[in-house]
């Protein structure tokens, strides 16, 4: 290491991106390793962040290690840019990464950090998605010993996860896993895709954008590299199904704001007690609305 090399620091003594250069370099190296072994949980030295574990510190360390001055960042929490977690993380990154642009528009972002959702808009190969992960190992539900889980991963032995699915079908007539659906990457490792709904799992498959997963508390990084196969674990005769949002008549429900029938919908109860459905991805909803407005203005003009 060049002893005369000066690390860039702000006036308070913090490096760009809060983490020191060595920490960022270590994270980057492990990101590369994670990309090289698709779906493999790469251990890394998760640093203490000035916020509690579980607030997205894993994702944040990935973002801080990757972000540079030319980047445009978008932070999402459960589809929304305005919820507490997203606002705070965005604020922290703005504070520690001077000169970085932020945006709410999916297509404008070069780097997106998200919790529990993948944006509705198809991402491009110029973009990177960072997902915050609470529990990285899908096998934890069937095998308590980490040493044995590692062997199972190494041998690609996921029969016990499938047995879990078998039990689900036996007891509930369908697979009841609503989120964190175990997904096999590039034909070998099965990963926990973080708490994204089943609806988002197909977006992992052959995604043009690089998708990275960071678990701060569990100290693991894993990746779905661009254009990589991602297949949810299924039985040959029981196909994988996403949430279909159909009503009692079998019609697809739509967003009550923008009318979208192709997005993941949040359900809540209105003032009169009626059920209301609305896009979970707020940016998608907004952009649809503004296009509809301008189209309406065109017509009225």
């Amino acid at each position, binding site marked *: 290491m060049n002893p005369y090399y000066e690390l860039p620091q702000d006036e308070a003594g913090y490096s760009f991106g809060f983490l020191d250069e060595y920490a960022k370099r270590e994270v980057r190296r492990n990101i590369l390793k994670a990309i090289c072994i698709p779906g493999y949980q790469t251990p890394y030295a998760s640093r203490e962040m000035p916020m509690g574990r579980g607030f997205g510190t894993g994702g944040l360390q990935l973002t801080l290690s990757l972000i540079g001055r030319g980047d445009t960042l978008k932070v999402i929490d459960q589809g929304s840019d305005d919820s507490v977690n997203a606002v705070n993380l965005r604020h922290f990154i703005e504070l520690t990464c001077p000169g970085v642009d932020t945006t709410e528009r999916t297509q404008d972002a070069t780097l997106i950090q998200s919790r529990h959702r993948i944006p509705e808009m198809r991402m491009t190969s110029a973009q990177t998605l960072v997902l915050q992960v609470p529990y990285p190992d899908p096998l934890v539900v069937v095998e308590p010993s980490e040493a044995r889980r590692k062997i199972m991963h190494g041998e690609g032995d996921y029969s*016990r996860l*499938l*047995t879990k699915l*078998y039990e689900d079908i*036996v*007891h509930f007539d369908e697979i009841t896993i609503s989120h964190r659906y175990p997904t096999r990457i590039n034909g070998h490792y099965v990963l926990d895709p973080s708490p994204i709904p089943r609806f988002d799992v197909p977006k992992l498959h052959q995604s043009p954008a690089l998708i990275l997963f960071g678990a701060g508390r569990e100290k693991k990084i894993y990746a779905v590299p661009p254009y990589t196969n991602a297949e949810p674990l299924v*039985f040959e005769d029981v196909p994988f199904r996403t949430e279909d949002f159909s009503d009692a008549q079998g019609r697809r429900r739509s967003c009550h704001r923008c009318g979208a029938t192709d997005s993941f919908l949040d359900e809540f109860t209105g003032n009169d007690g009626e059920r209301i459905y609305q896009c979970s991805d707020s940016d998608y909803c907004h952009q649809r609305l503004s296009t509809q407005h301008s189209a309406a203005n065109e017509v009225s003009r």
Partner: protein
Amino acid sequence: MKKILGVKNLGKIHGSGCPRCLESTGPDAGSNICSHCSSVVAAANISFDLHAGEVLGIMGESGSGKSTIVKMLFFDEEPSLGEAVFFDDERQWDLFSVNAAEQRWLRNHRFGIVYQNPHLGLNFNFSAGGNIAERLLMSDLAHYGQIRERARDLLTRTEVMPERMDESPKKFSGGMQQRVQIAKALSTSPPVLFLDEVTTGLDLSVQARILDLILEIQQELGTAMIAVTHDLGVIRLLATRTIVMKNGRIIEAGLTDQILEDPQHAYTQQLVASAL
């Protein structure tokens, strides 16, 4: 009949071991603890052949090393000495030099085991059918309908009511749990089945019916079996050939009727005499 398993000088030493372990243990020394280094020689100089479709009994008191042999052959324990060759349909497997993935493949496809303790053989967090499903899934069958059908057939065959297949074996009686274990072990039609004290601790009437079942299956499928037991009755009923063990060594081997009617070794004579 074709040889299916050849075991040569198999041995297991717990502890550091020393060059004098083997000479200072065994039936002549009356102990399996080495007087020089205090290592436990659980089994040593174990050699035998298993032929396709036969039942080999391994008899001996607790601590004689009989279960250790089966555990080593099923890869539950790593041997310290010796070799074992499995003669499969297409190829030969040198059991103690295959890699972990091959071991797993052999365990799932070619070998089956029924333990004395159902907790070892069954996952009580899964249903009875789920336990069979697990083994079928391990052997790369991934069709839900077929798995279910096969599990139902197997449980019916082993006389577990199929309408209880979706219950956890936790709720089953000891005999029923053994039946589920047998169904699970047989699910991939393995040519070799290991039975480790399968009827120990069960009621006499339940024991009898489990043994009947094993014998029927043996005749139907021609599965080669190694039955480990301390029970002479089980040996008499199941085994065509028998190995008698003491202090980790084979002291006598022969046709079961010969072992029972004309035992040669003092220990075997004592064993047979005390059973009558």
